[in-house]
């Protein structure tokens, strides 16, 4: 995207200037019949508009001013996503499409033109008169979305802009859109307004594919539905020579459509919608690429052009439905790689009509930005606070900002930060460096509640080791003392209402990605004694802050899985300051892959969260706020102009900090805020943000505009961040420590494991998305312990096993990763009603699985959790809605004492593939006549032995990362050719076909959602496994189907850093060399990916199509196939793979 260097205020402005002659001169107010001046080059008279645009002649060299008859777009400062296309029409004829020509001149003869301003899904037309010798201008006005909605409308809901029935764009509150004048409609809906009875999930594809040779042009098609569809009726009609049928499929309650074929096709859909009441509805089509025409009750309502350039994925039909049955017919073109879906959601909308008037093309007066550099600016100080304590990091010598770090990695923290103070809080206030000399680096200050002391993390200059420790000093820098001693790196300190100090302390083990030692929350006395570990996780828990109600809010990396089926994400969690009551607060919901951290609670109760890119190495981004009264559902964007993708309209925000309420504790809760802000706009994505452009200063935050407010402090060549308002703070509620000293256990109790907010009907086949347990199925519970990888363990590196497990069918979440070694603490039966009450070891990283009658996991807990000593931890259900209070259930588990599941650590079992499973396979399955070397019955190769197989991830492609397993493991975990899924679905034995074979029956997916259509054949034939061996298989799969699940040293071959690196190098070298054998070359270069993706396209191809295909693919893959291999591969394909002529 071209970047423009206009003043900031002009960014929102877009002016299309239709210039007659003097573009630089103000338009003379000439009448329509003003005759052309003599100096004007010949042009057609006004009265006869040109049927063809005249090519622009070069400006005639005029003595005074050049004459350039024509038109050009003045595109400077254009907001790229505001408009997408600009087309000039004369009559019904498009004479120019300026989409790709922004900023370039277009010369036109005088006449009346229609300029269509396009928004991807639709366009708005406006008439423009090009007059000789006059500057014409496309009239536009600015629509500010803040002003459109009523004040009580939710801030975060998307507002959809329509012109008539044409959907134009979606904006959020605070955003703008420049539009031709006219009447527009803005609509939004609150999710709770949805009426479930009108949700249509499924559409049916009917009608054959037209022989696809060229992109279908549906706009020229005439396809009037002449008769209303009736159930069961098929009707055929002809368009030209082509006969098409459409079929009534009715309003089906659920299900997505997976078209049988691939590629682009035309789909004819019809359904009836039973509207409970007349009104405006929206029908959403997802993944609808390539255009759409819709008729409602025989009348065309929408037409979306097939736009291969922009590929609108979502098309919304804006329908006014009559009460009762409405017949909707849709014709659409879909082209998607594997599947597409049409999904209709009927929604009640709130509609607002807005009018846009021409504002003369002038941009709105830009809000004057505060000066970037501090100086003698007489800005008044921020009221209500004594000053500001904050953190400074000088830029690096090359001028780049040096303060970007992953919050859980100590090695990336700045090495030369210092803590400073400013009093009063204004740019010319007295500045002091509080920590500079003594500490090599000091950061993350937190203020005591009386406003007199600061606790921070730092490492000293003089010390030999570079360990960060917690220190405390007065706000004036005096009274410095060290708090934590002889611990690992300590980070993120924070005062507790009890007077203790909370901090995150690095652990001895490495995290689940083998990246670094994860920090976990600890607390200690003010003198550093009595260190108590509060949180237990295999990844990091950082950035604690105390909420007003006494809970500790912190950012937790939950690798074990989450609701969205991704493996790992940041969630904001809460815990009582004694470490009990671990609970999700927010963040474990879409949008995913955003880092959420550095929360602070404002005086009005809202919790402000910094959200930034998923890449997590720059901890500034946009600010959102959630309210504790509904933390999962009240997320609102505070800084709507900060974009993570595309063009960023504002800078970046970081480190929010609440300002005291100016009206006192009894007054209205307004909640001011300080923040660090780096100004600047740009087109770069956040993770590409140019570090040399980052210049963070301290500002107040203006909630009204969603932008930085008053400048507080900003020094040149230095990043200023982590501001703290020095003032007396309200002490949060003190929640007493209820951990029982000396206790070794705690209790976990679940009232009703069938209570779940997971959707009951779900077609997704990811393990994490399986439907909740059916009532009556839960018979037991398995308690598992997770443990981190010791530093000395060389087996884990670079994290690529996850690739294999994730890319294969259905693994990924729910701990389906090989990095989480687990062992079984024990089993407990559940009561008849499914409730359970188990006594488990305290202060241990655990996870629970509910089990069915076969002892197979139904649901796997999606987080690592723990109990503190003596804690009695209760859950309403399994994955219950966090807004669900307890139904007053008389659960049977509450009638009994907790069941002890307290196997001591040395007796806890693991199941390891190499040690426990492979011997059984060797004995029972991999005989030569079965799945052995020769036979490979059913295409399954379960070869014995430990010859390691290099597994290259299909996703990482040429990157020679891989893991090394034996053939049997690879066969079980990897999807074999021509099979729809893997035989083993990690963490879900009851959905693993391997287990079905062993038990001789299908166990999971009792309904028709089973993707494996074949009946489970009992294995081994005629000689079922002994019960104990079957159970071992089940445990192995439920624990994650681990190749290596033996903690610490073990004698079995597995990951060996040296060995796997060597093999990786060998594989790389092998791939770098040309392969002589054609079949081998085909397998290595093509088959490994294409077969893995089950793409059978080549089989349908005729030999003449092969050479261009291979050439094209090779070009795309940048010469992946060596030149000498190219011909052999083509020949091999033509002879062996593709369709014979």
């Amino acid at each position: 995207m071209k970047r423009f260097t206009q003043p900031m205020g002009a960014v929102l402005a877009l002016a299309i200037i239709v210039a007659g002659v003097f573009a630089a001169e103000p338009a003379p107010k000439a009448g329509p019949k003003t005759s052309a001046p003599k100096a004007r080059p010949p042009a057609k008279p006004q009265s006869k508009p040109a049927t063809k645009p005249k090519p622009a002649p070069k400006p005639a060299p005029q003595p005074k001013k050049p004459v350039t008859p024509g038109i050009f777009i003045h595109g400077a400062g254009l907001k790229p996503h505001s408009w997408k296309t600009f087309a000039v029409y004369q009559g019904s004829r498009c004479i120019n499409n300026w989409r790709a020509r922004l900023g370039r001149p277009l010369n036109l003869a005088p006449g009346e033109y229609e300029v269509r301003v396009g928004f991807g899904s639709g366009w708005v037309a406006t008439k423009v008169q090009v007059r000789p010798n006059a500057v014409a201008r496309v009239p536009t006005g600015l629509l500010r979305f803040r002003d459109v909605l009523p004040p009580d409308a939710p801030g975060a809901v998307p507002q959809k802009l329509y012109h008539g029935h044409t959907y134009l764009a979606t904006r959020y509150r605070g955003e703008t859109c420049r539009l031709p004048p006219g009447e527009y409609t803005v609509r939004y809906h609150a999710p709770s307004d949805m009426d479930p009875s009108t949700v249509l999930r499924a559409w049916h594809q009917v009608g054959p594919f037209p022989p696809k040779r060229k992109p279908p042009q549906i706009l020229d098609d005439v396809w009037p539905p002449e008769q209303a569809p009736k159930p069961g009726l098929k009707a055929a009609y002809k368009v030209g020579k082509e006969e098409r049928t459409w079929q009534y499929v009715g309003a089906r309650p659920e299900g997505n459509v997976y078209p049988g074929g691939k590629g682009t096709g035309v789909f004819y859909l019809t359904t009836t919608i039973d509207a409970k009441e007349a009104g405006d509805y929206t029908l959403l089509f997802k993944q609808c690429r390539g255009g759409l025409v819709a008729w409602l009750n025989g009348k065309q309502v929408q037409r979306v052009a097939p736009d291969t350039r922009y590929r609108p994925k979502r098309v919304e039909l804006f329908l006014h439905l009559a009460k009762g049955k409405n017949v909707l017919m849709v014709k659409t073109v879909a082209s998607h790689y594997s599947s597409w879906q049409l999904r209709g959601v009927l929604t009640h909308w709130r509609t607002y009509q807005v009018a846009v008037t021409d504002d003369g093309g002038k941009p709105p007066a830009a809000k004057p930005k505060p000066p970037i550099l501090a100086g003698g600016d007489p800005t008044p100080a921020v009221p209500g606070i004594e000053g500001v304590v904050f953190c400074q990091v000088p830029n690096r010598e090359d001028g780049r900002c040096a303060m970007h770090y992953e919050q859980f990695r100590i090695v990336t923290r700045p090495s030369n930060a210092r803590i400073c103070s400013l009093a009063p809080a204004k740019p010319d206030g007295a500045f002091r460096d509080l920590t500079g000399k003594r500490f090599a680096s000091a950061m993350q200050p937190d203020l005591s509640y009386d406003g007199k002391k600061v606790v921070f993390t730092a490492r000293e200059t003089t010390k030999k080791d570079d360990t960060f420790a917690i220190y405390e000093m007065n706000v004036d820098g005096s009274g410095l003392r060290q708090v934590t001693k002889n611990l690992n790196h300590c980070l993120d300190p924070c005062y507790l209402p009890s007077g203790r100090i909370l901090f995150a302390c690095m652990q001895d083990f490495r995290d689940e990605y083998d990246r670094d030692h994860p920090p976990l929350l600890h607390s200690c006395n003010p003198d550093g004694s009595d260190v108590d570990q509060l949180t237990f996780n295999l990844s990091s828990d950082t950035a604690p802050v105390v909420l007003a109600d006494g809970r500790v809010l912190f950012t937790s990396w939950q690798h074990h899985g989450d609701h969205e089926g991704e493996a790992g994400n940041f969630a904001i969690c809460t815990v009582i300051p004694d470490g009990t009551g671990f609970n999700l607060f927010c963040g474990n919901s879409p949008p995913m892959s955003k880092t959420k951290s550095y929360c602070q609670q404002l005086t009005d109760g809202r919790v402000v969260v910094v959200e930034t890119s998923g890449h997590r190495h720059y901890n500034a981004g946009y600010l959102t706020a959630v309210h504790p009264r509904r933390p999962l559902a009240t997320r609102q964007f505070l800084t709507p102009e900060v974009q993570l993708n595309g063009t960023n309209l504002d800078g970046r925000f970081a480190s929010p900090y609440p300002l005291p309420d100016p009206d006192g504790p009894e007054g209205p809760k307004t909640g001011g805020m300080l923040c660090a802000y780096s100004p600047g706009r740009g087109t770069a994505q956040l993770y590409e943000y140019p570090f040399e452009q980052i210049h963070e200063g301290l500002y107040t935050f203006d909630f009204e505009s969603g932008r930085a407010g008053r400048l507080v402090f900003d020094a040149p060549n230095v990043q200023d961040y982590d501001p703290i308002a020095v003032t007396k703070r309200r002490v949060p509620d003190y929640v007493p420590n209820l951990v029982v000293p000396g206790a070794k256990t705690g209790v976990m109790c679940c009232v009703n494991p069938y209570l779940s907010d997971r959707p009951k009907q779900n077609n997704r086949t990811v393990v994490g998305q399986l439907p909740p347990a059916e009532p009556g199925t839960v018979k037991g519970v398995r308690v598992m312990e997770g443990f981190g990888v010791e530093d000395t363990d060389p087996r884990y590196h670079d994290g690529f096993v996850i690739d294999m497990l994730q890319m294969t069918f259905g693994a990924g979440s729910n701990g389906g990763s090989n990095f989480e070694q687990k062992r079984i603490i024990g089993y407990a039966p559940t009561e008849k009603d499914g409730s359970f009450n188990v006594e488990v070891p305290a202060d241990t990283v655990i996870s629970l699985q509910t089990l069915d009658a076969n002892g197979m996991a139904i649901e796997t807990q999606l987080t690592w959790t723990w109990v503190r000593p003596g804690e009695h931890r209760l859950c309403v259900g399994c994955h219950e809605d966090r807004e669900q209070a307890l139904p007053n259930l008389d659960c049977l588990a509450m009638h009994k004492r907790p069941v002890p599941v307290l196997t001591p650590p040395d007796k806890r079992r693991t199941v390891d593939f190499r040690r426990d499973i492979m011997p059984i396979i060797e004995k029972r399955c991999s005989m030569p006549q079965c799945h052995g070397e020769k036979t490979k019955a059913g295409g399954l190769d379960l070869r014995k032995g430990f010859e390691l197989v290099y597994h290259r991830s299909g996703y990482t492609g040429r990157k020679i990362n891989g893991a090394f397993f034996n053939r049997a493991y690879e066969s079980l975990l990897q999807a074999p050719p021509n099979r729809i899924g893997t035989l083993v679905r990690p963490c879900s034995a009851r959905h693993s076909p391997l287990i079905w074979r062993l038990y001789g029956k299908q166990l999971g997916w009792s309904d028709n959602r089973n993707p494996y259509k074949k009946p489970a054949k009992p294995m081994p034939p005629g000689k079922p496994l002994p019960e104990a061996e079957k159970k071992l298989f089940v445990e192995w799969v439920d624990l994650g189907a681990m190749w290596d699940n033996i903690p610490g040293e073990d004698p079995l071959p597995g990951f060996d850093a040296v060995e796997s690196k060597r093999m990786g190098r060998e594989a790389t070298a092998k791939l770098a060399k040309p392969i002589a054998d054609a079949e081998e070359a085909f397998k290595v270069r093509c088959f490994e990916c294409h077969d893995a993706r089950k793409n059978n396209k080549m089989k349908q191809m005729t030999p003449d199509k092969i050479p261009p295909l291979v050439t094209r693919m090779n070009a795309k893959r940048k010469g992946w196939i060596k030149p000498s291999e190219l011909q052999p591969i083509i020949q091999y394909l033509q002879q062996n793979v593709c369709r014979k002529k």
Partner: protein
Amino acid sequence: MIGRRWIRLAGAVAGVVLPAACLTVLVAAEAPPTPPAKPAPKQPVAAKPAAAIRTTDHVRAANAKRGGYKSPICIAFAPGGGVAYVTCHTADVLVGIDAKSGKVIGQVPVGRAPTGVAVAPDGKTVYVANTLDHTVSVVDAAARKVVATVPCGYEPTGVALARDGKRLYTANFISDDVSVIDTAARKEVTRIAVGKGPTYLALAPDGKRLVVNHMFSRQPATDPQQTAYVAVIDTAAGKVVAEKRSPGTMLLGMGVAVTPDGAHALAVHSRPNFNVTPSQLNQGWVHTNALSVVPLADPKAPVRTVLLDNVSSGAANPHGVAVAKDTSKLYVSHRGIHQVSVVDLGRLKYLLAHPAPNDPPTHVNLGLLWREGKTVRRVWSGGKGPNGLAVSPADGSVWVANYFSDNVAVLNAAGVLKTRIDLGGPKEMTVERRGEFLFHDAAHCFQQWVSCTSCHPGTRADGVNWDLLNDGISNHKNAKSLVGAHLTPPSMALGVRASMEVAAEKGFLFIQFIVPEPDELKAVQAYLRSVPFRPSPLHRAKDGRLDESATRGKQVFAKAGCAMCHPAPLYTTCESYDVGTFVPRDYPQSKPFDTPALLEVYRTAPYLHDGRAATLDEVLTVCNPEDRHGRTSHLSKQDRADLVAFLESL
């Protein structure tokens, strides 16, 4: 027209809903319990001398200690809204306030512990329910004096007046019935039996339906479905036509109002989760606080319950209910958190009619009312302990009686505090008063979920079994009354706390998850010590003497061996005995249960350590099969009835 009618009803009747039993009234009747004879024998812990039991003199002393606090509790407006009448619960007066100027016009001494108040349609007469006198005072508003005192059922609390002013209804908390009073004759006409512990009632605009909210359940506490209900009375037939139960648990029902169209009653209550261990408070684990929408027209239509709490903040102890003048809103006062919930009735109706998919059912949904549409807002009540509230028919403002601040706060219809009218009580709280306040305060509790009164309404018990962790998990025990607990150490059913003082401290720590300041703890302890036993009105003549049946029962009491473990005056030895009431759920089996005092046994149902006996008769019969809990099997039916009568008179 309907609106105007409604206003009057809302102001005069429904708005003045107020808890009776919850309000700790430090007053006792003249009739003392049996005077102290000798100190209880074999007191293992240094017991207080029996003389410490509060006699009438002590009660008077306690009254004096209250130091003239007003404790406004219920409000009713005169027609037109010119005058607001406020009952002052501990000052025993009815205060009139000029609504326009906000000035106190004057006060009229009425009976003891006045609670419910209603104004006649002509505005000339005001009716006040005197809870401790079991009477209704008829006050001449112009003359400012009581012109008649009408006896009614025991402990009348809420009152409701028919639109034509001819019939007055009182909810009688102890006699579990509704008194119907002919206002012309100034005489009780009849009584309609209702559920246990009726608190407040409201009359439909057409006067045909009377809705009564209840505090307690009639079921034994061992019933996991234990719940109170909302009774719907056909006033013409004079009987209960429907007992409306929430899909969740209903207990501690307080205020109730009827919508102006008469289609629904709106009742507030608590929703305790007593079936599980109360080891955490978050997510409404122990108590949630609910508003139930009760359909009146169709007897079979289900009650829809919604929670007033949200995910991280409870709305403890909802009390008064009033519908706004324009009927668009509902106001609910929360005594525990000193706030008023303003509920958008239109939005509530919409939410109930349009359940979202995959949402939890409304009666357990903590987020329902807090959606973006903002169905509910909470505003400051302008003082501490908001009880009754009423909507002015003149301007729609909301008047809130703040019990512990001795003021009446005036909020505008949107809930913004406009002014506060001081009723003139002392500005400083005595230790006992402060303790009473803290006992009723949930704002200090973790996330404001519960106050002490959430399980000990009026320092007594909610009749529910709770599984406190102090004696192990899974052995639920019936909540005990705290009245006189300081006289009968140890505390708790298994005596795991040495004294009431220790138990109070641990209660703060383990139930509310707070550590009270030492002076706060002392205040609460002092308050609990100051609460007198409230003498039973049952089976006693006006002068306090036992009636015939109870007199006979006293003989049976001795004969059956009851007095061995339940000797007067406290009717307990403070020892623990195994009386064969263990069930497998209890443990450790070796430890017997503490002997409870029998004073106030008439109001502490259900009985036994797990509340398995709904009535005293069940204690003597089905719950004592082996005669280990007194020799009761040989008693004749008459003897048993006499014994129960005697017990109820204690």
